[in-house]
């Protein structure tokens, strides 16, 4: 953290790229929820996640950025597309996607965004963090995880195990409860 705050009126190249990527992320996220085609929603999600990964890269969180690409752009979108393929056929425009709860949903979304933005602004105010490359490498994260955050790391394996067993039980109709 740095006390000397540069002027906002002369943004650096990194700040401009970050703003552009943020605009792409928000715009494609809006398209995810407004498009009538489910598959297009999943593909717009790829654009949104990719722009977010670019944001992480600009913030020098290098490892997190590539994790975002591997897990979210790769695995989670594949999971979503499989979910669509397994549950819906034929695919196409589905007018039933619009529910009558649009107003309520918009209110909830705006309220959530307001809470998050308030927390961030209240927590950091005018704090200015210099972008120093090398703080977000795999080595730095590794020493942080295996020195301070071992318990959450082990708990994560139990969570993955539970989800895997759940997915097996749900997708195998011949496994029955007692």
């Amino acid at each position, binding site marked *: 953290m740095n006390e000397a705050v540069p002027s906002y009126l002369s943004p650096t190249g990194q700040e401009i790229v970050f703003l552009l990527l943020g605009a792409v992320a928000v715009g494609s996220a809006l398209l995810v929820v407004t498009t009538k085609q489910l598959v297009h929603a999943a593909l717009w999600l790829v654009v949104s996640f990719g722009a977010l990964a670019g944001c992480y890269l600009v913030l020098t969180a290098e490892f997190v950025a590539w994790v975002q690409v591997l*897990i979210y752009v790769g695995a989670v979108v*594949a999971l979503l597309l499989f979910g669509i393929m*397994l549950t819906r056929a*034929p695919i196409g425009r589905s007018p039933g996607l619009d529910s009558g709860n649009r107003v309520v949903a918009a209110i909830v979304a705006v309220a959530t965004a307001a809470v998050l933005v308030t927390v961030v602004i209240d927590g950091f105010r005018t704090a200015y963090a210099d972008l120093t490359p090398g703080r977000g490498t*795999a080595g730095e994260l*590794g020493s942080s995880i295996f020195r301070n955050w071992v318990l959450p790391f082990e708990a994560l*394996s139990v969570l993955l195990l539970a989800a895997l067993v759940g997915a097996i039980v749900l997708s195998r109709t011949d496994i029955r409860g007692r």
Partner: protein
Amino acid sequence: MSPIGVSDEGSAPSVPNAIVRRRALAHRQAGGPEAAGYRNAGRGYDRDMGGYFGSYALVVALFAIGVAIVAGALSGSRLLRPSRPTAEKLTTYECGVDPVGEGWAQSQVRYYVFTYLYVVFAVDAVFLFPWATVFAAPGFGMTTLVEMFLFLGFIALGIVYAWRKRVLSWT
């Protein structure tokens, strides 16, 4: 973790100054538009192209060149080729046989497990990278090794479960 094996910002320059100066000289003699800017090129060259942002700018530039090549080839052929579409030409090519029915068919729900296994192993692999960089470093050692194998052991339990329930066998 620099993507193309160059040193991080602020560390030793990877190109000897003499070479940089010779390159700058060559540019000035070639009379490029930025020839004057090369007067201070000795350190700026390394910092601009070899640092964190410089190396990723290079990645973005290469990506843009790749996109331009593909887009140029496709739009070039679109401009040059004749276009006389008929109903037969516009049908989906399916090994020479007329396509039957829709292109989108609903699949069996059991394939969901394979996607989910992929997600689990992707998350698994993500944690192996930071672990691999530190477990041999001083201050980590055996404890870190055991922690990772505990993590892998829990996930292996899920694989054993899937195997015992014959999810992995082809029926």
